[in-house]
């Protein structure tokens, strides 16, 4: 059995996981810092880095204890080396590198976005390829075409805000507490998605890129205008209408990408994949288009290390190991 210990510290979760053979999650430990960052209204990089430093050893220890394994049982050490907050990445990376060196086991550097994608293979190891994967989180909005485990290309990306970032910013102007995305979804459930017609940014004909900053501005202008003329705003309607605008574009472009690439599956990944409206709409649209939609459970969609271990397993199989001078790359791109 192949046991990979993975470490993920790219943002505000200190996470360690042990996954056997790329599918069996033996431990998936996440020390969240949400409570720490809440009073600042967002993730503070220096504070995140400090917390990772304090939590890294206890989190790894808990992963081993949960898995019932000891260090010698590990076959490789995997770590996220980008993209993310550089100071935060460096803590997990420096620890993972010296751990791999001390254990004399291979080191595997994993792209964070690839981790999100492989959350899908963790849950559905036989997910058919080629697949189109929509990765949506606070940091990313990408459509990725997966030809095989080694061949992939980016079909489209956001040109400004990430989808999750737009959720968080709109949640903030609606006065919702941090982190705003899930709060906004909750509020939207009580609203009418057709109440306000916010703009959809389709961009040029055929483009699979995204843009959410115009939509965000439209919401801010709407609230500002209402305040000026002194009308009461139905916040739930605003939330629902905003969410509908985001979801409609995400779903339509994903289906378009799946059709163009003759994809045999659609995979939804990233923190925003936990959004119920997005999951529901995409599943329905996939059904209509005859392409099955796969959504890993929310715990695997938000940042975690099990997804990193799964991605690392496929790298392990082809001996894609990293040298000890592996560096953190905050703006690492997916090739």
């Amino acid at each position, binding site marked *: 059995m192949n046991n990979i210990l993975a470490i993920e510290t790219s943002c505000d979760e200190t996470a360690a996981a042990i996954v056997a053979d790329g599918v069996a999650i033996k431990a998936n430990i996440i020390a969240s810092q949400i409570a720490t960052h809440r*009073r*600042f209204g967002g993730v*503070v990089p*220096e*504070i995140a*880095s*400090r917390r990772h*430093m*304090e939590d*890294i*050893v*206890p989190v*790894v*220890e808990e992963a081993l204890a949960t898995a019932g394994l000891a*260090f010698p049982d590990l076959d490789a050490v995997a770590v996220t080396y980008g993209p993310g907050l*550089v*100071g935060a990445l*460096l*803590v*997990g*990376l*420096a*620890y*993972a*590198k*010296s*751990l*791999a*060196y*001390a*254990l004399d086991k291979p080191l595997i550097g994993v792209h964070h976005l690839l981790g999100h994608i492989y959350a899908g293979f963790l849950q559905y190891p036989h997910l058919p390829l080629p697949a189109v994967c929509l990765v949506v989180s606070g940091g990313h909005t990408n459509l990725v075409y997966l030809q095989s485990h080694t061949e992939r290309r980016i079909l489209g990306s956001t040109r400004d805000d990430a989808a999750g970032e737009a959720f968080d910013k709109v949640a903030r102007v609606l006065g919702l507490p941090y982190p705003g995305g899930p709060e906004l979804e909750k509020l939207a459930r009580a609203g009418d998605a057709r109440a306000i017609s916010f703009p959809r940014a389709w961009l040029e004909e055929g483009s699979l890129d995204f843009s959410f900053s115009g939509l965000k501005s439209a919401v801010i202008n709407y609230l500002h205008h209402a305040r000026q003329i002194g009308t009461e705003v139905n916040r739930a309607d605003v939330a629902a209408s905003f969410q509908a605008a985001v979801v409609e574009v995400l779903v339509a472009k994903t289906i378009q990408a799946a059709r163009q690439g003759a994809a045999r599956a659609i995979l939804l990944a990233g923190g925003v994949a936990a959004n119920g409206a997005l999951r529901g709409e995409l599943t329905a649209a996939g059904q209509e288009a005859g392409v099955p939609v796969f959504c890993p459970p929310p715990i695997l969609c938000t940042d975690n290390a099990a997804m990193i271990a799964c991605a690392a397993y496929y790298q392990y199989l082809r001996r894609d190991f990293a*040298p*000890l*001078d*592996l*560096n*953190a790359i905050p703006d690492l791109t997916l090739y």
Partner: protein
Amino acid sequence: MLVLGVDSSTQVAGVALMDDDRLVAELFFNTQKNHSQRLLPMLAAMLREVGVQVADLDGLAVSLGPGSFTGLRIGLATVKGLAHPAQKPVAGIPTLDSLAWNAWEVPGLVCPVLCARRDEVYTALYRWQEGEICRLTPYQALDPHSLVTSLESYTQPVYFLGDGVTSYWEAWQSLGPRARFLPSTGTLPRAAQIARLGWQRLRAGAADDIFQLKPFYLRPSPAERQARSK
């Protein structure tokens, strides 16, 4: 007792190996600040050269700070990763204490100064007494001119060292002939001092707990500072 010392608190990356009080090996790079890429490979190269494996180490020592926040974390995270599997004892050593050792037995005050951004230096004042270094003031972040003003109340010569020496050269000169400086070979942090002070600590059984050990930042994060001043 084999003790590995690691220092990445400034632009210097250093690793050293002590066997009790014998310095076995040391690597020191004051070239570019690229600790994330360089620290572990140089550590591995040094141990390979002397035929020592991580498993052979009896303990590890690391420069705890104050210093560059990121540099301190790279050093400590590296040491935690090395020490964790076999639960090897670790000693976190105050960076300014280790620097003061570079000025061994100088006749007067020892004043390490490390660049701390915001036009301040991390500093503390020391004096040698019967072969032991005694710290006279708390660890502080101070602007160089306030530090010089506080030094005016002493009469002894003051030996400055650290990467803040050249950065604030004129400030130290303003102390007049009492200002003395360590030679360039002894002015920057040395992993050998970290390893040696670590050996002394570990020999006395005073290891730190790697489950809790964190850098000695001396300063809160800027966000916390702002939140406090509101």
